[in-house]
Each structure stands twice: as structure tokens, then as C-alpha cells.
């Protein structure tokens, strides 16, 4: 039985030429747990907003064709106050959804709008808190909560309204790994209840796969590209998924490598697949000979104005030529501050940072928009060049070459703010690289990016490092670290708690816990398999897996 159906929906946002959704047909069955995937800009969020009536009732759009029926009601004809009783929607960023200042008020907000009497509110709030593991130890004020907990409060506030369906639109996209795990645990318990129809948009596919019944994939144009059973989609359509730029589970690659017909849903299942075949030995990580030191930080400390403790509390590190150093750690560990110190943007309160002669560091911030100099893409590239004192004719030449190299040539005269998510990221990296810096420093570069953009960025990092360049990446994204970093520095409370190869970090449970890091799914599978068969290698990324498979394909 259908809970919601989208029928030949074509919808265009105000001020856009191309439709966000084109003739989309999708069924969401009663009680079904549906995973929705698609590259960025494929219309996933637009679809989510249509399902609970925000479009067209609260946000205007050109509704060009088709209709959406939820729980038997045409969303364009029903009132939004009725539609929100049917479907609740959880957005990406908890900060952009919270209205009140205290947890209980926040959960009550939706109930007040529904006109639930006060004496009934208390019990509904209590039930919603219990469902999202918000117990009495949770601080009362929202401002005191972590991102993951705030997102659970938002989820609780939706659950309290008792909708029959729930849409979760990339609920972990703005969270650190531990926060994401909190929210996914809450999702898992909802999925286990099977009381509601659930639709989740989430690129941590490995983590949600065991809680979903079906997968639907949108393509870049807003069509439904494929849908069906997760094993069929992920094992049978891998090529197409890759060409669409859609995240697929890492464990699907493991399933293919071992000839399994099913994508493992749990770490133990994955570990069993690992032990089911032989793996070529992987060279133990050796401390590779490092090039000339470019940046040296000695006993560096930094304290922000009016802060009670040092954000960076005595750090000694060296960044050398030809390496990709990843800086990892929990939120508030001082990663970005250390990055700003290394780049010379902040001056240390104590200690010193020295930069090798004739070296420059280009810093790419987490949010590309923050760094744009308004006007055009070309002007943005030229801005950095003229700031470095490059002559205008030469600047023109280099800007044009870089536009070509980054596939931005056709956007040269566009306003940077009008670019898509991925294009903005590309422009911010291009603007940093156009001046040919010795060190490229990237702050959370994969945050909120789709697979194609992340793969592109990874290739760029690899290429620079191979060519002898240096990259420093501040990130929560351990799969990215596993695939591209040559060295990892883990921070906690402003201090270095680990320094070494990514594989060494993955073997250190204590550091992972302290830094609130979660092992990438492949690394977790191999770690568990090694506990049974100690001789196995610790493979932690898709790239390593592919290398291992190539090596074992060659007869010894």
C-alpha cells in the first residue's frame, strides 16, 4: 500500500531555468524504509520539501506538471497544517531548525502549533525524549548541546508530533563522526520499530543500509535513475552509480571482491567475508623518507581573546615537502586554529611557526563562500594573483589556464555565489592553487560534497603530492584520510595525541575513542577479521582494496 506517491512531478525553483525535478515517479510504501540517493543538485532536498507540503505552501516554486499524494491527500489541495501531521522532515543543519532556547520548549513547539492541550504535551515530550535517548542528564539549554545531540532534539520534536512518515534529509551531513553516530543510532531504533514510513537521504550508506528496505537513486537531471532492492542496486549497478557520482557502500566493493551476493550489513558480516578469502600481504607502513621541512611549529600555543584555555596548547610538528598530512580530532580540539597558525594567519601566543624561505601556504576554508571576492569567477582567480604581485598579463594567462584545468571555463563570467555546491568548492581550491603555493591547506574539504566532488578532490591531492607538492587536510572524514593521507596528526584538547601513518591510527582504539573518531567500514571489517586471523592486512580504503585485488590477480 502506498503511503506517498509522486506522479510525473516536474518542478522548477523560482529564478532557475532548469527544473529541479523532471517527470519524477516514485512510490513510498506504507511502513517502508526508503533510502534516497543522488548526486548533489539532483533534487533530493526538493523532493523532501514536496513530501511534507512545504513546497508549495511555504516555499513557492513553479509546479510545472504532476502531483504528489501523501496519505491519500493531494499536497497542493490539502492545508499545510494537515500535511505536517502526516510527514515530518528533519533537515541537515540542527542550527537552522531550532527555534527555542530549551530542549523541552523545542520539543513542544510542534505540539503547540498542532494545538495539543498542555496536559497531553508532557507525556508526548517524555515519550519523544525516550525514543531519542535524551535522558535527564541532557543539559536543559540547547546552547550547551553538541551538534549530534541538537539534531536528536530536532528529531524528538518531530516524533512528538506523531507523524506517520518521516523524511530525514542528510541528517548527519553537518555533524562530526561521533555526532553522526548518535543520530544514526536514533534512526536505527526508529527503523526497528517499523511504526512509521521512513525516507532517508544519507551518504553514509554503509551505516544505514541495514535499516532500509529499498533504494531509489535520482540522476543529475532530477529523474529517477533506478530503484529497488539494495543488493541488486549496489552489486548490479555499480558502474552506473559511479558514473552518476552517487555514494555506494564501501562494503559493496568487499562483497564484489569476495563474490558475495549480498552487501554486508554489519561489521561482523563484513569480517566474515574478509576471512573467506586470501589477501596478498600489504607492506607494513614504513616512515617514508620525508622531504625538506616547509613548516615547523615549535611549542606553539594559541588562546583566543576571552577564552579560559588554550585552543592550541603546546604543539610541535613539521610539515615536509611531498606529503599529505591529515589533521584529525573532535570538534573544538583546535584543528582549525592549528591550521590558521601553520598558515601564518594567526600569530601564536607562545612558541613559533617558521616557514621555509620562498614558501607560501594557501588556506582553503570550509565554506567556500566565505572566501569569495564578489564579481566573477575569473575575477576571483585574478584577485589572488594580483595580491601576490603577479603582472596583469601573466595573471590573465594563469587564470585562463586554471579555469580550463578545473573545468570552470564556461563559468568564467558567472558570479561565484551562483555556482553549485561542487563548483564553489572547485573554485575555492582553484583560487588557492592558481598562485602556485608550496603548501595547500584544506579545511574540511569534503564536508557536504557528493562522491564525484570528493573523488575529484582526492585525485587532485594525490597528483600534487606525487609531483612533490604538500597538502595539509583538516578533516573528520577518515575514509578520505585512509585513501589520501601519508601521515595523520590527531589532536585532542589542543595537543597532539597521535602522529603516524593512517593504518597505525586505525589500529589504535584508544586514540580513536579519545578523538571521537569512527573507523571507516572497511577498516572496521579488516580489524575484526584480523582479531580472528592475525596475518591479514589492515585494508582501510577503497583504493587499498583495489590495489590488493590487482596484486592478488597477478599470479605469483
Amino acid at each position, binding site marked *: 500500500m502506498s503511503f506517498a506517491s509522486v506522479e510525473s512531478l516536474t518542478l522548477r525553483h523560482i529564478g532557475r531555468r532548469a527544473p529541479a525535478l523532471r517527470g519524477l515517479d516514485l512510490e513510498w510504501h506504507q511502513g517502508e524504509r526508503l533510502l534516497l540517493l543522488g548526486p548533489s543538485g539532483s533534487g533530493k532536498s526538493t523532493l523532501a*520539501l514536496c513530501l*511534507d507540503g*512545504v513546497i508549495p*505552501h*511555504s*516555499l513557492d516554486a513553479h509546479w510545472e506538471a504532476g502531483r504528489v499524494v501523501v496519505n491519500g491527500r493531494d499536497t497542493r489541495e490539502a*492545508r*499545510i*497544517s494537515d500535511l*505536517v*501531521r502526516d510527514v*515530518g*522532515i528533519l*533537515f541537515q*543543519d540542527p*542550527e*537552522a*531548525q*531550532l*527555534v*527555542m*532556547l*530549551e530542549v*523541552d*520548549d523545542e520539543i*513542544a*513547539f*510542534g*505540539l*503547540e*502549533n*498542532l*494545538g*495539543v492541550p*498542555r496536559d497531553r*504535551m508532557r507525556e508526548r*515530550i517524555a515519550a519523544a525524549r525516550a525514543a531519542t535517548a535524551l535522558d535527564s542528564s541532557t543539559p536543559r539549554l*540547547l*546552547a550547551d548541546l553538541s551538534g549530534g545531540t541538537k539534531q536528536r532534539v530536532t528529531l524528538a*520534536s*518531530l516524533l512528538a*508530533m506523531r507523524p506517520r512518515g518521516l523524511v530525514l534529509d542528510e541528517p548527519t551531513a553537518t555533524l562530526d563522526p561521533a555526532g553522526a553516530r548518535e543520530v544514526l543510532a536514533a534512526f536505527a531504533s526508529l527503523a526497528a520499530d517499523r511504526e512509521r514510513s521512513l525516507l532517508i537521504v544519507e551518504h553514509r550508506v554503509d551505516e544505514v543500509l541495514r535499516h532500509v528496505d529499498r533504494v531509489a537513486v535520482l540522476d543529475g537531471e532530477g529523474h529517477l535513475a533506478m530503484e529497488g532492492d539494495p543488493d541488486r542496486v549496489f552489486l548490479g549497478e555499480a558502474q552506473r552509480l559511479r558514473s552518476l557520482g552517487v555514494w555506494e557502500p564501501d562494503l559493496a566493493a568487499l562483497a564484489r571482491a569476495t563474490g558475495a551476493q549480498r552487501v554486508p550489513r554489519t561489521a561482523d558480516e563484513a569480517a566474515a567475508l574478509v576471512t573467506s578469502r586470501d589477501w596478498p600481504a600489504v607492506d607494513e607502513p614504513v616512515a617514508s623518507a620525508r622531504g625538506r621541512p616547509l613548516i615547523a611549529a615549535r611549542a606553539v600555543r594559541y588562546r583566543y581573546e576571552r577564552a579560559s584555555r588554550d585552543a592550541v596548547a603546546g604543539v610541535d610538528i613539521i610539515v615536509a615537502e611531498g606529503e599529505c598530512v591529515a589533521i584529525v580530532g573532535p570538534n573544538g580540539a583546535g584543528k582549525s586554529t592549528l591550521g*590558521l597558525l601553520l*598558515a601564518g*594567519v*594567526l600569530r601564536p601566543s607562545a612558541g613559533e611557526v617558521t616557514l621555509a624561505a620562498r614558501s607560501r601556504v594557501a*588556506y582553503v*576554508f570550509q*565554506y567556500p*563562500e*566565505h*572566501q*569569495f*571576492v*564578489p564579481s566573477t569567477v575569473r575575477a576571483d582567480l585574478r*584577485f*589572488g594573483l594580483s*595580491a*601576490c604581485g603577479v603582472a596583469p598579463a601573466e595573471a590573465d594567462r594563469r587564470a585562463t589556464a586554471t579555469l580550463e584545468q578545473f573545468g570552470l571555463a564556461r563559468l568564467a563570467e558567472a558570479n561565484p*555565489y551562483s555556482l553549485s555546491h561542487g563548483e564553489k568548492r572547485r573554485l575555492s581550491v582553484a583560487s588557492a592553487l592558481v598562485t602556485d603555493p608550496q603548501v595547500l591547506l584544506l579545511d574540511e574539504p569534503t564536508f557536504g560534497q557528493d562522491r564525484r566532488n570528493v573523488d575529484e578532490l582526492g585525485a587532485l591531492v594525490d597528483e600534487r603530492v606525487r609531483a612533490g607538492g604538500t597538502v595539509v587536510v583538516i578533516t573528520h572524514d577518515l575514509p578520505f584520510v585512509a585513501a589520501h593521507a601519508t601521515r595523520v596528526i590527531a589532536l585532542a584538547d589542543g595537543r597532539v595525541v597521535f602522529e603516524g601513518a593512517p593504518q597505525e591510527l586505525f589500529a589504535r582504539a584508544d586514540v580513536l575513542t579519545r578523538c571521537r573518531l569512527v573507523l571507516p567500514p572497511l577498516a572496521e571489517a579488516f580489524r575484526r577479521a584480523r582479531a580472528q586471523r592475525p596475518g591479514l592486512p589492515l585494508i582501510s580504503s577503497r583504493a587499498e582494496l583495489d590495489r590488493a585485488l590487482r596484486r592478488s590477480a597477478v599470479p605469483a
Partner: protein
Amino acid sequence: MVKFAVVLVLSLLLVLVIDPITPLLFLALTLLAAAALGNVSLASYGRAFAVLAVVGLGFVWSNAILASAPGETPPLAVWGPIRVSEAGLRFGIAIALRGLAIGAISLTFVLTTDPTRFAVSLARNARVPDRIAYPLLAAYRFLPFLTDEYAQIHLAQRVRGAADASTFGGLRRRLRELVPLFATAVRRATRVAVAMDARGFAGASSRTYLRETPIGGGDVVFALVAIAGALALLWLSASAGWLRLWDGRFSA
């Protein structure tokens, strides 16, 4: 809500007072009451007063040299073309102290009021539309976000090597930084509005409230005591001959 009304009344009363002593009395009483009953740190007053004091000094200075009617009374001091009159100085000090007193009363309100209760009470007791009262709360959350965001943007733009040394370079840079700030602020505000509507804020017909905000005996007593206190001060000031009320003129 009652508290807000009292603050409004007291501030209006003070606006009409143009002598320097009466505001000083109000200031003393407010601080005394806040310290005794409000459980607030005087340090927070100190910080706010530092700002108000600078503004206040500006008033003193401008009134002292501008508000003097030539030939009326001999000036207190003459530095070249600058004549400082006694009346002007008195008026300036009165305005400055009045600012401090109103500031102290308002700050006491801010420091001792739970913003959620205030917003709900505005909606329920003062019948301010929900469409205005609730966005007030969202805006309250917004301010720290904007400050953080601006700090980030400032750093990000500095990294771009935007060292423009010309006279207007600094100003141009600041203006440039406002563009991304504005862009993120607008986007964020839109998202919050959409999220509120998605939780039924739009089209809510018979809204209920989790918080009870009855106006009780305590509120009445508070209002009476506060107003009585204010009147007592005015009476004290009047009987001592200090009090002067505004008579419609803009100079002494």
C-alpha cells in the same frame, strides 16, 4: 511581561527628567534592587556601563559647548572659540546619567529575564502575534551565530591576501566581508522559517502553550512596589528642589 511594562514606564518617566540628580537616585536604587534581589553580577553592569559612559561623555561635551545661549550667563570656561556654559554642562550630565539609569533598568531586565518566558508572555498576555514573538526567539539565537560567522569570514578574506593599503582599502574590505555575511544570514533565516513551517507554525489555528505565564499576585505587587519606589524618588527629588522636568525646550 509585567516586568517589561514596568521597565517601559520607568524609562518613559526618566526621559522626562532633565536634572542630573534624579537619574542618579534611580541608578542607585536599580543597582541596589538588582544586587539584593536579582542574583546578578555587578561585573556585567560594569561592561555595559563602559560603553554607555563613552556615549554619555559625548553628550556632556556636545551639550556643554553647544547648548550655551550666548550672553545669558557668563561661561564657565573659554578655550579659544569654545565656550563651556554651566547650564549646558548640567544638561549634558543629566542626559548622560539618564542614559545610564535607563541602561541600568533595561540591563536588569535583560539579566533577570528568561527570554523564552518573555516571548511566550508577549504572545499570550500582551497578545503580540506569534508571527512576531517566536521569530524574536529565533533572532536571539541568531546573534552569536552572526558574530562567529563574521569572525570566520574576516579570517577567510584576510587569507585571500586582501591587504589593501589605500585610504579606503580598509572600508572596502569591510564592505566586501559583509557580502558573504549577508548571504549566509539570509540563507539561514530562510531555513529556520521553512523548518518552523514544516513543524506546523504556518497555518496553526488554535495554538496551545507548554509554558504557563499567568499574571499573578506577585506580578501586581512587583509592579506596585516598583512604581511606588519611582514615585517616592521623584517626590524626594522634588522636595529637595533637585527635580526638573522637560518643558519642551531642547536647551537649558
